[in-house]
């Protein structure tokens, strides 16, 4: 045995030496992985999403024992909507498997006795008939074992392939197996497991109760839910994945389908590296990567600034209407150089509205402040102002909007105190008030009107809709303004 190892070592170092000397040749990459020597036996660590087992690193190839149980069980698709999932290892997607190239994987599939149906597993990492499906077809209350040599590195989908195959996949029977290359993947700070799937229910999207699978919709590819990790909200709020500023994040992303291709995207991040289709080719600086159903991708990026980064299928109605939405919460120091946050906030009125500033305001003010306009003119000018500034909230006839904006017509609150009314127009108003017996609790913003304009608009209001016909003078407005 030792002799064999020595020979291997010699051979390997020979290869290394030659590769150093000669030009890097493409052929060097073509190693016969089927002859990788295995040493020892270990049990695989299996994790449920969004977590992944510890990296394989540079351990030697081994016989890797995997024990996976199939469970048919009821779960929550979204609040109030239940669904009977068929699972590998109790979760959708199924448990994450991590191995290395050259491992001899001995896989045992156990079908729980309470289950109704036979199942099997087709692992895309398998080189062999049916990806193992032929050898793993197992009735409830039974188990089957088969083994395979991991010949190709990459991120691979596994799924059930029992008739009707589409239905088994649509009910959640899929997951990922990672075969690490010789020496392992480069080290990163955080790794997560995300897998998209589309679901088809008898009821419409969000229809409450226990929902059955709908074959007709599945055939039409008319999904009611498109989600990450088996349900709406599996990766949002408290379930969000996390990282700290400055860390590198690696996502193992799969797509179980059964039907829809994912346009995988993280809003506010650019993928530094993408292992295209989960294979060895690496693309860089990618915004959105396409993941076919039954396919996968490894995406890597560094998080530079804090905040919540939204993970979506950029076929965007799926994200906001069917559930394909997750969150990556990044905490740490802000970096204003990289991202400023809001620098300035302002109002933009392309359609007009009130004039914000008047270059020749002073002159005009002097001109009008001495002479009080006739009442009719005031009302006419006030009406114009009202229609551009106040109309949206208080409505054309001053009737307001129930429970939101108080009425101005026949308003006891308005008629009771002119100075208070002027003050509100000048300074805005928040908090609860009672108008004609009804309580209102909303916000009126401060109006950017000149003193004359305030007088005009209030005079119009007081002389309309059954109010007390007060003529608000510019002097009153001035008085209120200075008293404030």
């Amino acid at each position, binding site marked *: 045995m030792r002799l064999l190892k020595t020979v291997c070592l010699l051979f390997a170092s020979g290869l290394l030496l030659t590769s150093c000397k000669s030009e890097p040749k493409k052929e060097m990459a073509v190693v016969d992985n089927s002859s990788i020597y295995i040493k020892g036996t270990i049990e695989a660590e299996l994790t449920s999403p969004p977590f992944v087992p510890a990296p394989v690193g540079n351990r030697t190839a081994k016989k890797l024992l995997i024990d996976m149980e199939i469970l048919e069980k009821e779960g929550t698709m979204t609040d109030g909507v239940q669904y009977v999932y068929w699972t590998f290892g109790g979760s959708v997607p199924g448990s994450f498997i991590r191995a290395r190239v050259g491992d001899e994987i001995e896989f045992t599939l156990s079908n729980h006795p309470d289950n109704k149906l036979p199942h099997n597993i087709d692992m895309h990492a398998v080189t062999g008939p049916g990806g193992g499906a032929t050898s793993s077809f197992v009735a409830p209350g039974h188990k089957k074992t088969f083994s395979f040599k991991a010949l190709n590195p990459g991120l691979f989908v596994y799924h059930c*392939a029992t008739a009707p195959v*589409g239905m088994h996949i649509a009910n959640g029977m899929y997951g990922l197996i990672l075969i690490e290359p010789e020496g392992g993947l480069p080290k990163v700070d955080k790794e997560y497991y995300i897998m998209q799937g589309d679901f088809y229910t008898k009821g419409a999207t969000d229809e409450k109760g226990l929902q059955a699978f709908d074959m007709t919709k599945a055939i039409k590819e008319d999904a009611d839910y498109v989600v990450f990790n088996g349900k709406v909200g599996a990766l949002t709020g408290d379930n969000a994945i996390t990282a700290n500023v400055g860390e590198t994040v690696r996502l193992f992303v799969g797509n179980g389908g059964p039907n829809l291709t994912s346009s995988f995207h993280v809003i506010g991040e650019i993928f530094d590296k993408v292992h295209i289709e989960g294979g060895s080719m690496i693309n860089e600086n990618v915004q959105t990567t396409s993941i076919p159903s039954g396919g996968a991708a490894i995406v890597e990026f560094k998080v530079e600034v804090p905040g919540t980064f939204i993970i979506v299928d950029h076929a965007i109605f799926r994200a906001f209407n069917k559930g394909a939405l997750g969150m990556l919460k990044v905490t740490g120091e802000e970096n204003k150089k990289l991202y400023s946050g809001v620098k300035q906030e302002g109002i933009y009125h392309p359609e007009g509205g009130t004039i914000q500033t008047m270059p020749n305001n002073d002159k005009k003010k002097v001109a009008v402040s001495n002479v009080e306009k006739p009442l009719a003119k005031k009302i006419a000018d006030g009406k114009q102002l009202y229609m551009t500034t106040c109309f949206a909230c208080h409505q054309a006839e001053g009737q307001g909007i129930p429970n939101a904006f108080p009425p101005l017509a026949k308003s006891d609150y308005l008629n009771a105190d002119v100075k208070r009314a002027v003050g509100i127009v000048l300074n805005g108003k928040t908090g609860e008030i009672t108008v004609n017996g009804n309580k209102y609790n909303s916000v009126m913003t401060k109006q950017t009107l000149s003193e004359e304009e305030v007088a005009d608009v209030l005079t119009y209001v007081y002389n309309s809709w059954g109010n007390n016909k007060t003529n608000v003078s510019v002097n009153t407005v001035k008085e209120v303004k200075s008293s404030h």
Partner: protein
Amino acid sequence: MKTILRLTICLFLLNATYTSCQSKMVQIKGGEYLPLYGRDSLNVKIKDFLIDVYPATNREYVDFVKKYPKWQKSKVIKLFADESYLRAWKSDTILGENQKEKSPITQVSWFAAKEYCECQGKRLPTVDEWEYVAMANKTIPDARREEAYNQFILSWYEKPKTFNQTIGSTFKNYWNVYDLHGLVWEWTIDFNSVLVSGESRKDVDTDNNLFCGSAAVNATDLMNYAAFMRYAIRGSLKAKYTMKNLGFRCVKDIKK
């Protein structure tokens, strides 16, 4: 020779003492039907036969193993039943605590079910016979295209632990037969003749007439996925297997 002798004794005993225990049977009028795996030219002919109204029950099976101790769980030959055989039973002749006498017997192998029927002068139904009777809903003999009927079957597939229910708790179909859908899967005599190899996508090549696959381009009714699942479960079985969800009922030929 021995078997024949034993069978004769079986039949004798049966006639003498078992008539009262025998479950009620009804007559099915034979006919032609197109099975899931068939094509237009492959209509299957079904002769008239009798079928048990209910699946065999725990109570009936207790009586059976008392009479035929070789089928008791401690005595059964391992070749004829796997280690889950009657697993829930407390002892060789006593049911488990949560088991009801009127629930269908499950966790029995094909060998056991076959012999149970034979000892009553009956036999297990063929897949075609079973499917022929089971395609009837309450009112019509062939309801395979009725949406509500398919819905009922499928909703059962999603209901856990229905094997705890008692016989007669589902519906009486057109032929006055109960519980074909909604309680347990049932053994058939030729359960494995429609090949589901486990790799259902390649079964198209295995046998052009008898297959059941997902990419089932030859299947007569692609929407009848409830039936696909029945063929799948049958395909996953071996004769010594026993399952919590799998029972049986017997049929009998009509002598002309």
